């Protein structure tokens, strides 16, 4: 638990997205319907197929402060509520002040503007209640405990790891770097903004199998292959995330802000169980950069990847389908 040298509220702010409207190049506005944002996923998806060229989006926000913030005898003065949008990919920080709905109300609301040119993928949205405490201006007396994600590309408000999946015949692809890999069904490239899975359509029937909705055993093999690919992806992204860490002057690693950070937060509890993620990252980083312990960690990394890829379920389903098929054959 963090220690604060001043009085604070011990409960967080509840922040909700109430609306999202796109501003288009011709000056008109397109209000997005409620499917563009999800409260359980805390995500707003601003990618809409028809309007790739939007200029900005206006997001309507509502924040509820915990009890005690507006008490007359509270140990602070000059209470304000700020919504802050940050984006680690583009070093962007936008702040707006929310307005109190009524005097002494716990409800505050306002709008934040998201400019399309300022974001490549996902930005985070948080709210802070700030006040003057013991003569110090700008103290945060409570904040949101989990950020909202504003995704400028996605069409659906989904959290978690996002992948780019593309298909190409590796041996003749215009992407010449794929040619040396012509003899494998897929490769993974984690060097970009999103992890990319390239599917090799030179493997005959492969893309039909992956794209098909056929029933029976084909379905199960499809599922099995996807989980195999997903295992590869999770393993690759984990390695690329820990392999590319920024380090503080004191040697402790910094959580990346892009998808690498999401991957680490997601997988570290399985890789180094029982530790807080920050401590888990320090341990993994030490193991990788010191002389010992990295090899021993591989089993845990693989375990974390297999769990996320849903391999157990896919294997069990495939086995059951095989048994069923054998039974039908023998009848």
């Amino acid at each position, binding site marked *: 638990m963090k220690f604060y040298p001043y009085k604070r509220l011990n409960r967080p702010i509840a922040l909700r997205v109430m609306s999202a409207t796109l501003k288009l190049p011709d000056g008109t506005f397109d209000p997005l319907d409620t499917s563009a944002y999800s409260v359980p996923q805390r995500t707003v998806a601003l990618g809409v197929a028809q309007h790739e060229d939007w200029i900005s989006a206006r997001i309507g926000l509502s924040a509820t402060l915990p009890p005690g913030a507006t008490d007359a005898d509270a140990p602070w003065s000059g209470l304000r509520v700020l919504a802050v949008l940050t984006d680690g990919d583009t070093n*962007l920080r936008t702040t707006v002040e929310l307005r109190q709905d009524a005097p002494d109300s716990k409800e505050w609301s306002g709008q934040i503007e998201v400019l399309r040119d300022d974001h490549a993928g996902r930005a985070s949205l948080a709210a802070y209640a700030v006040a003057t405490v013991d003569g110090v201006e700008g103290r945060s007396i409570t904040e949101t405990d989990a950020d909202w994600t504003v995704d400028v590309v996605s069409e659906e408000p989904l959290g978690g790891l996002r992948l780019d999946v593309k298909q190409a015949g590796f041996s003749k692809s215009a992407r010449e770097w794929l040619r040396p890999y012509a003899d494998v069904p897929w490769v993974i490239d984690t060097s970009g903004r999103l992890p990319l899975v390239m599917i090799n359509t030179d493997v005959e029937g492969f893309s039909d199998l992956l794209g098909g909705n056929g029933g029976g055993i084909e379905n199960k093999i499809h599922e099995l292959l996807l989980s195999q690919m997903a295992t590869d992806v999770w393993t690759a992204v984990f390695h690329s995330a820990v392999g590319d860490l920024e380090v503080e002057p004191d040697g402790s690693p910094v959580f990346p802000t892009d998808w690498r950070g999401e991957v680490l937060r997601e997988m570290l509890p399985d890789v180094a169980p029982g530790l807080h993620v920050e401590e888990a990252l320090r341990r993994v980083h030490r193991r990788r950069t010191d002389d010992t312990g990295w090899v021993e960690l591989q089993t845990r990394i693989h375990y974390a990847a297999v769990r996320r890829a849903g391999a157990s379920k896919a294997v069990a389903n495939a086995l059951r389908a095989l048994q069923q098929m054998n039974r039908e054959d023998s009848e």
Partner: protein
Amino acid sequence: MIERPHHVPERLGLLSGAAADPFLTEDLLRGVQGHGGVDLAKVVEPLPEDDARWAVEPLRDLVDDAMFQFKENRTDADGWLAPRLHATLRLTRREAADKRIWNHIALAVAPDYVAWRHLPTASEGKVPRINPVRFMGAPDRQCFSRLWWAAEMFRNGADYTPVVRACSNQDLIHNSLRVSLVDHRPTAQALVRILERGTATTGREINGLITAINTAGATVIYDAFAEDEPRDPWALRQWITDAESAPPVPRHVLPTGPDEEPVREDSVAKLTEYFADLFETAPVRGRTP
């Protein structure tokens, strides 16, 4: 020695990390020999034809001029090149966040500049190599993207003067970009002012100050008392459109950036005082309290 590639492309393109990797050879990193450029061109994804910003020549001319002018003191090239690179490329932050464009500039357009600016170094007993992150790496380390971001974060609207000041302290541009402190424009301007006033000047002092600001920032929201102007998307878009007819950037005076609102003076002044106070008590390596 790494020389200008035999084949320099005419247009900028996108070079993915996976595609670029085979060209990051041991010979290149040791500064022995670069590549011809022809094979590399095959793995580059083109950018749209009709955009004047993707012409390579103005960029190539800039790095040639920088190498000529700063051959005696290569670190000083940063402060000269950063604003001019920024005003030549005219990128949105969204475009600049794509590492592939920086990979292409470093490997296809000006690998000789990367090798010139970031000489091979080695710890005792090892073969000297150029740090590969200077070609392809984090935005605050890669040879060209670090300059572009320094210019973007430290410019005050259209005025690049603070960028030149900021680049005179390598620790300032490196560490402040890394901890995303300067995402808040008034903070960036206040840091430059601290440097100008001589309150903190050495690398150690700047590092100590940045750590102190960062630590205090965990409980104090600087935006609350040092407000910034809202961003205007049209100023930048207009500047980008003007790239079509823009002459090469001036060499002797600073170029002019996009016509955005400068940071509010009262915010900068307030934060400068605040940081100066923080610095009084900040732990700095080698400073006796």
